[in-house]
């Protein structure tokens, strides 16, 4: 996760705006850049995009809320994506979701109280042979059981504890 200062992030984002701002159809790449840099799409980012593209903020919000990828709220340190694809569904993804929810006392689309995790469900990660699967940040975990996912979550907690 990026931990640079706000000024540095703003500078990075302005660079993207200069690069893509004038291009046709650049809203989605710019929203993606904002999310990559700030980890979510803030109101401020939307207004910056609007200024540089001359597209009204309302239209940009329209696009941002249409696509599932964009998050309008800050997220936790780690993002958990529980796959809900067909193969995962028939192989017990419901139980995995429940195990995560219970273990972290969090509901789908929410952050844990300590801000460590954000829980999301995704339609399909595309690694159906590993079902049921969960992606935490960029790491994919497959062939899970409720016990296995609990253990994995604990290992994230433990690493964090050690870092502190």
């Amino acid at each position, binding site marked *: 996760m990026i931990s640079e200062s706000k000024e540095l992030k703003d500078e990075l984002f302005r660079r993207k705006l200069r690069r893509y701002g004038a291009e*046709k*159809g*650049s*809203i*989605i*790449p710019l*929203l*993606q850049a904002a999310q990559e840099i700030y980890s979510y799409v803030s109101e401020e980012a939307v207004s910056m995009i609007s200024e540089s593209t001359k597209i009204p903020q309302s239209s940009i919000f*329209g*696009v941002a809320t*249409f*696509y*599932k*990828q*964009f998050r309008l709220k800050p997220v936790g340190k780690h993002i958990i994506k529980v796959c*809900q*694809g*067909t*193969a995962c*569904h*028939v*192989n017990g993804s419901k*139980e995995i979701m*429940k195990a995560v929810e219970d273990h972290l006392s969090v509901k789908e689309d929410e952050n844990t109280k300590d801000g460590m995790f954000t829980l999301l469900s*995704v*339609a*399909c*990660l*595309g*690694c*159906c*042979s*590993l*079902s049921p*699967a969960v992606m935490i940040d*960029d*790491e*994919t*975990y*497959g062939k899970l059981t*409720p016990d296995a996912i609990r253990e994995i979550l604990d290992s994230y907690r433990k690493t964090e504890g050690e870092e502190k």
Partner: protein
Amino acid sequence: MKTLLVGMGTCGISAGAEKVWNELIRLIDEGDLHDKVKLEKTGCIGMCYREPLVELRKEDGTKTIFGEINPEKAARIIEEAVLKENDLDDLVVYDFKSGGDASLFSKQMRVVLRNCGIINPENIDDYIDRDGYTALERVIFDYTPEEVIEEITASGLRGRGGGGFPTGKKWLFTKMSPGDKKYVICNADEGDPGAFMDRSVLESDPHSVIEGMLICAYAVGAQEGYIYVRAEYPKAIERLKIAINSATERGFLGDGILKSHFKFSLKIKEGAGAFVCGEETALIASIEGKRGMPRVRPPFPAVSGLWGKPTNINNVETFANIPWIIINGAEKFASVGTEKSKGSKVFALAGKINRSGLIEVPMGLTINEVVHDIAGGLKNGKKLKAVQMGGPSGGCIPAHMCDIPIDYEEITKTGAIMGSGGLIVMDEDTCMVDVARFFLSFTQKESCGKCTFCRIGTKKMLEILTRITQGEGREEDIPKLYELAEKIKSASLCGLGQTAPNPVLTTLKYFLEEYEAHIIDKKCPAKVCTALVKFVIDPEKCVGCTLCAKKCPVEAISGAPKKVHYIDLDKCISCGTCMEVCPKEAVYKE
């Protein structure tokens, strides 16, 4: 020199291929084995159920695939198979002596997957060595655009994204549309849950798709192209970027391609997570930076597409077929398959089968052959109940109909569709009402909201299905589902709405008794719908360990230590925790 190839598609990496890769590098460095063995990465070998996979190619050209490799086993491969040339039979999943899972490959025909798992997708020379870009060269110098379209038309290739529209005809429409600026788009917004064909092709052989697009651009007269890829496929995007860069460096992309007058440039557009963008007009809106909503057709994209210009859109698999057709000839392609479905089709096999993975079979093979011969039958010797094809737009084909051939028209007759290639196998433990509900909840969430019947109708259908699975179904629910299904199909603008009721309709058609069991008898025959199953402890098996009582969230389990426990069904919320924690498997569903 021997070569070791590590399968580094997303499936392989998530199963641990990177650790194996790093360990192999370390071992080769440490042992100073660079003159004995060369290490290469490759894409998807297709045996996802055995990942991580490592293939050994010997000097005599024979190959052996080792499966389920971890760093320790990697060390054995180096030590025993590479250095001592032992057979290492316990790790072999497939070899030239036709051992292991040979039946996985024997009925396959690899056209689209011709290079997958064989070449290093990040090295353009590997692709060129296997006739890469010769089709492009041939087309530019020996064919007129019209001749290219004739060839593709003669091959009988149909859109592999699921629609099955003849590819040659589509190209011809774009070619005939007036306009000096035209676009070619590759639809890689593979959104069906349970489908990973396009991802694997892009990760394993990106140049075949780029070459296919180039040939299309030459034929229709386009100068610019886009590949619209799901953002959930970071590896595919990374490899495509590498491929585009190296193809540009070598003069296959850009101005004056192969020193001719033909020019074509290619950009990647990352999707942002909207299933409906797989529909071509929605995809175009998304590239233009708008909300990805479909619009009325006509005008078709071939006449007015991206930025209002003539645009040809095909899916990844369709494009990957093109170079093969040019090199081997339309006749050879058309000699495979059935009367109206030519060539081969890639399927992503998943579900309750022994071998999940990526396969490609000639059209005309029966579904049974795919499930039993290629996929190795069902897990744990269970019985086949149904096969789901076409994802949320498709349907469930019951076991007794699985002797039909893979053919666009034959599959459509069952109520399912060929679809893009997701093939999910279901056994007797799968509840068909639950499956229908699952797909509908997907399409309901993904409906863009433009058409009323799709937006509200799917919601109403979902409410009905949810209440059926919760044991609150009513007898009038079934006719109501039919009525809603018909209206959604006829009053929706795009494929998403028009096909959304299919999973419900096919399960109603073939598994009506299961719906009735839920509604009338308040039972789930497959014991999946938790509200309709009772959890019971088998007194013969219970050893009184008290674990279930401790874990029960509602204190519904009573019993003294070392004595048989009981579940109070009035308190039980059917969460299944007791069954999950019981070390003696004494808890069962009734």
